């Protein structure tokens, strides 16, 4: 294995070992700071309930992300077609973006009856803006000479969209997607923290809240671990997607 791969792994392993050693040697009580081994043990002991919650959180995250893609791209296409519509509506998008989701989540939970729908909406609000703003820039970034060439050869609007605008916007869209993937998870968890719902159809945020009420610190860590893994998984899948779509031609994926 090459050194640039081994280095982060070694750092990670060393900090885990340090953590484990610190807890054992200093005899820190598990309700203050559990050792990594105990966190793993707790994770396996509670795997059933945690896995169900993880699945719920994942559904909200990916659901919101899919809606953010659809909404972001659709609105971006409209903005790209008309500057005046963009001028009229962009402030609304900015207002949605700058308002902390923690602050509007209680209102949304009042207005929207279904908790799942409210959570989706909260996560969507956080996730759609990077996709929207990036895609707008991307659609506008098509080379002016190539646009002329398409006109000269009398391309249909559909050909222009498919063969020129979409490929030009793709790197920008993917950059937005990478940001939105992380934000979508944050939005889903934050909204659920505010909702504080209990019961079966709830996510990892609810498990963390429950565990904190009972001072089950190891379980809080176990849920946290699953959230971190989910975030990393989302990040890696988009890195892979980016490589697959842009690797052959775009500067952002060049190795040299």
């Amino acid at each position, binding site marked *: 294995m090459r050194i640039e791969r081994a280095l982060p792994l070694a750092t990670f392993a060393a900090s885990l070992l340090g953590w484990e050693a610190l807890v054992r040697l200093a005899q820190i009580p598990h309700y203050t700071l559990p050792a990594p081994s105990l966190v793993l043990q707790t994770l396996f002991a509670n795997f059933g309930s945690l896995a169900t919650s993880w699945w719920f959180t994942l559904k909200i995250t990916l659901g919101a992300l899919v809606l953010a893609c659809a909404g972001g791209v659709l609105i971006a296409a409209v903005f790209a077609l008309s500057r005046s519509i963009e001028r009229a509506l962009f402030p609304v998008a900015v207002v949605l973006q700058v308002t902390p989701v923690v602050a509007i989540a209680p209102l949304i939970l009042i207005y929207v009856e279904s908790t799942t729908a409210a959570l989706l909406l909260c996560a969507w609000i956080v996730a759609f803006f990077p996709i929207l703003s990036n895609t707008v820039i991307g659609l506008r970034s098509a080379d002016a000479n190539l646009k*002329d060439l*398409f006109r000269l050869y009398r391309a249909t609007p559909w050909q222009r969209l498919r063969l020129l605008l979409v490929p030009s916007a793709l790197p920008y869209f993917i950059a937005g997607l990478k940001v939105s993937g992380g934000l979508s998870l944050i939005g889903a968890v934050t909204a659920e923290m505010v909702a504080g719902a209990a019961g079966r159809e709830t996510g990892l945020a609810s498990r963390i809240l429950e565990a904190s009420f009972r001072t089950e610190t190891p379980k809080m860590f176990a849920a946290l671990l699953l959230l971190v893994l989910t975030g990393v998984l989302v990040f890696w899948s988009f890195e892979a997607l980016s490589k697959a779509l842009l690797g052959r031609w775009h500067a952002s994926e060049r190795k040299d």
Partner: protein
Amino acid sequence: MSTPIVALEEVDKRFEGGVQALAGVNLQVAPGEFVTLLGPSGCGKSTVLRLAAGLDTPSAGRIDAPALRSSRADTAFVFQDATLMPWASVADNVWLPLRLAGEGRAQARPRVDRALATVGLAEFADAFPRQLSGGMRMRVSIARALVTQPTLLLMDEPFAALDEITRQKLNGDVLAARQAQGFATLFVTHSVYEAAFLSQRVLVMSARPGRVVAEVGIPEPYPRGAGFRNSGRFIETCAALSAALEGAHA
């Protein structure tokens, strides 16, 4: 002169900001003729090409060009930079004009390959633009222009960014393709030497507002080789062009 393929009559072009780019431009290009517009940067040479391509409309005057007559793509345009789609392979870039006309990849492949062979890039069909040098990218651009068998080729300072050796080689390539396919060319440059080597007729343009102020004919027959570049006739032509250019901007 037979019926011209391109004709501009008293053409004015004023842009939205009020800048007058062209004032009373008259010019004609015969089928198969190689005409060069020579002038300094900003004299409206590119505007003439854009008008002939139907990409802009004149403020006044009359224009006749294939792009305005027919619905078929028989006008080709080569820009100053290669203007390739970075996400598409060399072959797919050359395929573009045929693809926009509804021709499938397999159906177009023989013509794409032939166009690439014309510019000496047959082995690079599957390469991506970023893997090529500037000169090779420009050749792909020329192949893309030639693949539709155009009757008119418009070239806007296509070799201005290339080194002298590459430029001379590509000048030769353009003349060879012209010999083989017989298209008319309207070529824009600010290089006296390039104009003298390539053209049958050079139209010298004045600075803004652009007008055609002098015409220099170059009777040297094609094919022209390196011999012409080193001949006294070439040097005389260059001197005549330089004098006309100085006269236009005195």
